[in-house]
């Protein structure tokens, strides 16, 4: 699917376009992650208003957002900045232009796969699989912390999955048909 799918999805485009942003920069000032973004939230908004969707979707900046909602609370125009960034993340995955070597989109996809399969998350499983995929050598650095947690019963290797996974499966399958409108 190409980037043109954004244009054919009016719902999604509406969701991500900050039509009333006045470029005051409050979002950038309160953002805890701004040092890890190549474009600040204000600049992302400017780029969107200028029509540079593709550059925004390719950016690491949207994937550095932790979703803390500080910008949303402080925006004087009451724009849903955080929800817009979530929409941009979805659009960057949908169009396939997300930064492949950046760890957070990989994590989000892994996480969703795990939930779809088991219904619950497992901290041990997801951290292990992510490290193996993205930077196996870092495993050693954090192994001592993991061991300390395990000794205290805080990092079970096996967590419960659902007793009746079929029900959750049905709910998720019913939403499989997507129109692009509300993804």
């Amino acid at each position, binding site marked *: 699917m190409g980037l043109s799918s954004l244009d054919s999805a009016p719902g999604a485009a509406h969701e991500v376009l900050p039509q009333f942003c006045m470029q005051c920069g409050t979002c950038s000032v309160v953002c805890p992650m701004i040092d890890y973004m190549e474009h600040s939230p204000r600049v992302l908004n400017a780029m969107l208003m200028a029509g540079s969707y593709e550059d925004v979707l390719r950016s690491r900046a949207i994937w550095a957002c932790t979703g803390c909602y500080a910008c949303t*609370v402080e925006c004087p125009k009451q724009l849903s900045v955080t929800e817009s960034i979530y929409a941009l993340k*979805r659009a960057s995955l949908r169009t396939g232009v997300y930064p492949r070597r950046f760890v957070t989109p990989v994590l989000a996809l892994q*996480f969703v796969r795990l939930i779809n399969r088991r219904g619950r998350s497992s901290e041990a499983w997801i951290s292990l699989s992510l*490290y193996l995929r993205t930077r196996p050598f*870092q495993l050693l650095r954090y192994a001592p912390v993991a061991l300390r947690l395990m000794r205290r019963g805080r*990092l079970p290797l096996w967590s419960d999955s659902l007793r009746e996974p079929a029900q959750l499966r049905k709910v998720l399958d019913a*939403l499989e048909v997507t129109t692009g409108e*509300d993804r």
Partner: protein
Amino acid sequence: MNYAYYPGCSAKGTGRSYEESLNAVFGALGTGLDELKDWNCCGASGYPAVDMAKAVALSARNLALAEGARPGPAPVDVIAPCAGCYRALLKTERALADGGAVAARVSGALGAAGLRYEGRARPRHPLDVLVNDIGLDRIAEATVQPLRGLRVACYYGCLLVRPYATFDDRRAPTSMERLLAAAGAEPIDWPLRTRCCGGSCYCGGPLIGALPDATLRLSHRLLADAKQRGADAIATVCPLCQFNLEAFQGQMARKFDEPVSLTVGFFTQLLGTALGLDRRALGVHRMLQWRLPEPAGAEGGTHV
């Protein structure tokens, strides 16, 4: 009557002592928690980054389960201790109440699995329940070991009060300070108490390694500032914040050349201590460090 209880995944892992201390505190105050049967993950903030409708549906199933377990017209309060789960449940509650396209699709999907959400199930955070249902008078009355002299930094993090301010202010919340003050502690003034710890998103912070440097830096700033302001301990309301702030103090000390050794516990563990509950029942044995100042005697001086 007992509250319905949605634990969330972390309550069974890194945040086990949150669940343990929550159960112990509620039990001591004469109420209990009924865990939802066969609950699923709330989707955290990973799922909404991939598929919004399904993310809404995940929490919708949990709310439907809570209603199914308590038929009748009465509202069902669902206690969600993890701030991330709490936000996800609130997001779903609002998305389904607005009657838009997502609401229709999610209701249809629930129906396909024989489930229904009527809107009776309401997400509640235990901090809200303790302060506003049970009440500070009752807490003060039940306090047998006041946390006298404990200078505590009350840390709310992001998602308890943002974006939905259900029971407290989005910028300057005070519930936890009032609760722990009723239990005899001395909450410090701490402007950073709603600043992100860096790991809200990615369930496990630097352990998962999403952006380890960022998480270490944000968490270090919080710990260093709390310490500078004279805190003996940090009280948290979220298993991810607790984990981020507690587990990587060694890495932070090396990286920033500034040791930040500080006890970081769940607010329920501190409250339970004041209620005279057993350390083991509060999950204190699971913490990586736990050092509280000796409580001053009844006639003893105040901390100056």
